[in-house]
C-alpha cells in the first residue's frame, strides 16, 4: 500500500504539493510555506477571456506553478506528464500506484461527483492526489475535502480529460526520490519565493496583472453600471467575489495564507521584520473581505446607485495601495542568510 496521508488544506494546489512532499521531506513543509516558496500570491484580470459569461479574475498564480516552483526551488526532481491517449494516461497512473507512488492530478471540477452541484463549473485548474486503487475504484485525496474519497475509473478519466480552458490532458505530476531538506535550503527557497512574488506583483509588465491589475479592476468597476447595466454589473461583482472566495480559500483567502507564510518565514529568517509585513497582508485580506461584503450589498439588490459602485472601485484601489506597500517592504529587505 502506498504511503500517503490525507490532510485538508485551504487551497488545492498548495495542499497537494505539501501532501506529496510530506513523506519525501520528512514533514518539514507546511501549506503556507509551500504557498510562499511557490510564490502563489497573484492578481490578474484577463480582459479578453470570459468565464461563465463574466470577467476572468485570478487571485493566485496559474495552476501548476506552485508545485513546479516549490520543487525546483527546493531542489526536488519532478516527474510531470501529459497525455493524448486516455488508455496511456490510465496505464501510467496504474503503474505509479503499483510502484507505491501517489500522484498529483490536474482535473476539471464540472464532473467531479462529490462536489455539490452548485460548485460545479467548467474550471480545469483543480488538483487532487490519487494514492491507491481498490478494484476499479481509485482512492482520492482532494485537499479541500475533510476526508479522503474515491472515484470510479470512468469518473476519474472524465475529470482528467475535461475540456476547455486549461484542459488538463490527463496531467500527472509527482516529486521523484527523497530529499534531505536542510534549514538552509528552506531559508534560501523562502527568499527566492518572496523575490519572485515581489516581481509578480510589482514589476510584471502589463496593466492587467499584479498591483496595477487590482487598481485597474477598481477603475473598471466604477464604469460597470453604465457600461453593462445594473443586472449584468451585479453578475460581474458576484463573479469577482466567487473567484476571490473560490472553494477552499474562504475569506480573503490567499492573502491570509501569505500572511501565515510570512509568520512561518520569520521563524527561519528572524530580524527582517517579516512579522510586521505579515500584518499588512492580514490587513489586505480583511479589506478584500470588506469589499466582498460591499459587493454583496450590490448583488443582493440592497445597494444599486453609481455611488455604490464608486465605493466598490475605491475599495480595490485602497487594497492595491496596501498590497503595494507590503510588497515594497518585502522588496527593500536586505537578506542575510546565516
Amino acid at each position, binding site marked *: 500500500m502506498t504511503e500517503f496521508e490525507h490532510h485538508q488544506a485551504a487551497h488545492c494546489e498548495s495542499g497537494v504539493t505539501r501532501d506529496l512532499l510530506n513523506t519525501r521531506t520528512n514533514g518539514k513543509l507546511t501549506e503556507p510555506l509551500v504557498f510562499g516558496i511557490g510564490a502563489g500570491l497573484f492578481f490578474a484580470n484577463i480582459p479578453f477571456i470570459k468565464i461563465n459569461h463574466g470577467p476572468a479574475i485570478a487571485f493566485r498564480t496559474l495552476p501548476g506553478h506552485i508545485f513546479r516552483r516549490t520543487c525546483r526551488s527546493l531542489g526536488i526532481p519532478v516527474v510531470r506528464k501529459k497525455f493524448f491517449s486516455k488508455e496511456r494516461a490510465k496505464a501510467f497512473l496504474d503503474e505509479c500506484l503499483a510502484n507505491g507512488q501517489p500522484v498529483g492530478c490536474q482535473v476539471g471540477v464540472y464532473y467531479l461527483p462529490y462536489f455539490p452541484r452548485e460548485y460545479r463549473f467548467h474550471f480545469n485548474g483543480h488538483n487532487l492526489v490519487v494514492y491507491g486503487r481498490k478494484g476499479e475504484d481509485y482512492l482520492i485525496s482532494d485537499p*479541500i*475535502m475533510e476526508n479522503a474519497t474515491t472515484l470510479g475509473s470512468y469518473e476519474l478519466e472524465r475529470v482528467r480529460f475535461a475540456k476547455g480552458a486549461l484542459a488538463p490532458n490527463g496531467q500527472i505530476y509527482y516529486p521523484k526520490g527523497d530529499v534531505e531538506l536542510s534549514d538552509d535550503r528552506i531559508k534560501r527557497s523562502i527568499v527566492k519565493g518572496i523575490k519572485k512574488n515581489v516581481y509578480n506583483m510589482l514589476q510584471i509588465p502589463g496593466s492587467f496583472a499584479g498591483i496595477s491589475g487590482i487598481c485597474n479592476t477598481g477603475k473598471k468597476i466604477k464604469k460597470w453600471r453604465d457600461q453593462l447595466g445594473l443586472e449584468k454589473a451585479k453578475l460581474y461583482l*458576484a463573479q469577482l467575489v466567487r473567484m476571490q*472566495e473560490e472553494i477552499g480559500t*474562504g475569506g480573503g483567502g490567499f492573502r491570509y495564507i501569505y500572511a501565515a507564510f510570512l509568520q512561518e518565514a520569520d521563524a527561519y529568517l528572524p530580524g527582517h521584520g517579516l512579522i510586521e509585513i505579515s500584518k499588512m497582508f492580514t490587513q489586505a485580506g480583511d479589506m478584500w473581505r470588506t469589499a*466582498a461584503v460591499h459587493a454583496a450589498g450590490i448583488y443582493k439588490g440592497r445597494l444599486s446607485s453609481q455611488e455604490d459602485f464608486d465605493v466598490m472601485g475605491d475599495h480595490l484601489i485602497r487594497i492595491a495601495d496596501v498590497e503595494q506597500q507590503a510588497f515594497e517592504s518585502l522588496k527593500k529587505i536586505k537578506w542575510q542568510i546565516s
Partner: protein
Amino acid sequence: MKKDEIPQDPGALGRITKEVCYATDASGKYTTELSSGWDVKIQALNVAWEDIDKRIAVAKQKVLDGQASPIYFFMEYRLMDVALVADYTGFWQWQVKRHLKPEVFKGLNDTKLQKYALAFNTTVDDLRTMTVHDDRV
C-alpha cells in the same frame, strides 16, 4: 481575520465539507480553523445560479417553440458554450452550430447523437426528448 470571526453560515458546500481558513488567534499567530460557509459567498453563488437557471429556461422554451434543437438546451444545462461542446464531442464548431437547428438535428444518426449524449452525460433517448434527471451530473 481573527479566528472567532470566521463565518459559519450554512450553504451548499457545508453539506459536504467544511473549509479550512487561515486566521489569527488571540496572540496574533496564524492558525487554521474550519468554516461551514460565508453568506457573502453563498449569495454570490446564488446570483450566478439564478442567471444560469434563467438561461436554461430560455433555452428550453426555444426548443419547445421549434427554434432550436435539444442540443441547445443541454448546452445551457451543462453550462457549456459551442466551443466547449465541440471540444467534448470532437465535432467542429460549425458542425455544432448546424446541429443546433431542429431540422438538422432530426437527421442526425445515432453515432453522432451518442457523442452528444456522452458529452452531456445523458442518454440518446433523453437527449431527443429533452429529459433531465434530478441530479445534474
